[in-house]
């Protein structure tokens, strides 16, 4: 299969969906002239015109609010957050409008907005440009949240998100944009809400997503060398979470670990662990282990930043402990 970057994969998704459906357009800061900080919009204005690829003012409430308004008026907007950290600036538009409008209005309308939000740690971007905030949105009924880890899923989930009649938050890890991977030709779609077993195993289940999936896969390689076979699940969607896949796996492995880059406390791992401990405690032979960032803002200094990043060794070590 051809290999392209994550960034190119999202670009293909955008182009194909904009081609397919004239109602699809995209707006955000520095996406037309610059092509996006990560090149993720490059060439779209040339192809679709700056009427459908709009450089906006620095006005996040207008970007998201107008996205919702355009959706109510029949369009299918993709809005870009520049950095996921700035979703804080328009939380009202996301939480009180985008998520609730259809329900509050008794189903009179749909809100087919996709909100793209580059997140995660990259190169000492420090406390206000490095956050992974996806777990907040688990707690907000009305949204769907996807978190691709590779180019194929990046494309397939973005296309699915654009076609979805529900609002979808699409968190894309900044450090993933330049990474390459195989992407099927043609109209490749990945269903929202379905996890992916990326590595089968019998000794423990490791659930992860986005960037951290790669740390987990490295760890799984190491563990295999030490006789421990981890089953690795890429969630792909964190709202709704595919608990069927998780439960099927722990029915086999009887051990569960969850790994994400976001702060451990109150992260997605909390919901997964809690739900497993509620619904399937019998299946488990050991405590449920969560790995996430320590309880601090992301520090600037590279040697401190390193301490909040999760490594394959962290994962492997914890997995070994869990399997003993």
């Amino acid at each position, binding site marked *: 299969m051809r290999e392209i970057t994550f960034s190119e994969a999202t670009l293909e998704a955008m182009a194909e969906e904009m081609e397919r459906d004239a109602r699809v*357009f995209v707006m955000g800061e520095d996406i037309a002239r610059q092509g996006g900080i990560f090149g993720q919009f490059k060439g779209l204005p040339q192809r679709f015109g700056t*009427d*459908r690829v*709009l450089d*906006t*003012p620095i*006005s*996040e*409430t*207008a970007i*998201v*609010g*107008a*996205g*919702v*308004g*355009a*959706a*109510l*008026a*029949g*369009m299918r*907007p993709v809005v870009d957050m520049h950095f996921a950290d700035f979703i804080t600036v328009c939380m*009202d*538009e996301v939480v*009180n*409008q985008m998520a609730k*409008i*259809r*329900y*509050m*209005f*008794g*189903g*009179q*309308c*749909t809100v087919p907005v996709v909100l793209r939000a580059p997140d995660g740690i990259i190169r000492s971007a420090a406390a206000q440009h490095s956050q992974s905030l996806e777990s907040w949105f688990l707690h907000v*009924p*009305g949204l*769907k949240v996807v978190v691709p880890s590779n180019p194929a899923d990046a494309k397939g989930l973005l296309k699915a998100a654009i076609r*979805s*009649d*529900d609002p979808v938050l699409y968190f894309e890890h900044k450090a993933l944009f330049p990474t390459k991977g195989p992407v099927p030709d043609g109209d490749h779609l990945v269903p*929202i*809400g379905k996890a992916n077993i990326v590595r089968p195993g019998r000794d423990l289940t490791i659930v992860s997503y986005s960037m951290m999936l790669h740390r987990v896969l490295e760890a799984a390689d190491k563990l295999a060398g030490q006789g421990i076979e981890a089953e690795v699940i890429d969630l792909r969607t964190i*709202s*709704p979470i595919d608990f069927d896949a998780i439960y099927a796996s722990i029915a086999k492995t009887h051990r569960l670990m969850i790994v994400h880059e976001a702060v451990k406390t109150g992260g997605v791992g909390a919901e997964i662990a809690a739900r497993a401990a509620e619904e399937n405690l019998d299946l488990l032979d050991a405590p449920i282990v969560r790995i996430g960032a320590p309880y601090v803002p992301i520090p600037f200094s590279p040697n401190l930043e390193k301490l909040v990043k999760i490594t394959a060794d962290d994962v492997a070590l914890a997995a070994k402990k869990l399997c003993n």
Partner: protein
Amino acid sequence: MKHDAEFLRHLYRRMISIRLFEEKIGELFLGGELPGFVHLYVGEEAIAVGVCASLTDQDYITSTHRGHGHCIAKGAKIGPMMAEIFGKQTGYCKGKGGSMHIADFSVGMLGANGVVGGGYNLAVGAALAAKMRKSGQVAVCFFGDGASNRGTFHEGINMAAAWKLPVVFVNENNQWASTTPYRTTNNIEDIADRAKGYGIPGVVVDGNDIFAVLETAKAAIDRARAGEGPTLIEAKTYRIKGHFVGDPEMYRTKAEVQKHFDENDPLKNFAHKVIGAKLLKQADLDAIASETAREIEQAVGEARQAPYPDEAELFADLYVEGVK
């Protein structure tokens, strides 16, 4: 006065509908029949009706927490409005929205909003959709004097001005934001002056004179439709009722309110003018009023009888594509 009798009757019908609807709502609320809380539009009828008179069902409006008047002015029906405010299954939002989240998408009324200042960007987005489609539709955003201090005012109007979107921002300056007088939180006499910061026309109009509102709004709506961009209209009025029904109104005197009502009641103004100009007779107005009163009584009767939503409806209309 260049309007024909039919049109004048239409205006009066809408205004008196709002007045009687609101008075009935106040009575029902104080009688303990209505859930939630309700904010009445009494005394501001000329604004919504005067503006909406130049809109079609294809045009959009966004509204506020004080939204019943906007609904009626845009052509929503009394029956499903009343049912909604009762929380009944037969309401516009199947009882899920209530007074603060009432909407009628069939006539382009994109919803009341419980978030003050939440509507600006929805209107901007609807206008953006109209511009992209070249459909000739216009969006109107109603908002209060208090709401004029939300950041969304600035972000929305700036974006609309920069992109010359077909949207009209209609400020209802009723001198009060809940218990807070206009001049204590704004250092300018006229909110319309803020238009200068966006390079768009800003117009002050007597919000108690429907003919003045009509003319001003029509010019702005025509301008928007012609692709010349947004206008900011400030309609000066006064909030005759408490902020919400049940408000003890400790912050102003009854005499002050009475004086405003005596001098500026938009319905009295209207009657005075049309009867003075011999375009309609008092008897015409009375006939419309009694017909309207009957319609409202009927709506109350039906709403009382209507069922609450079935409990199975709790999860309906949250997502289009099912999530459990």
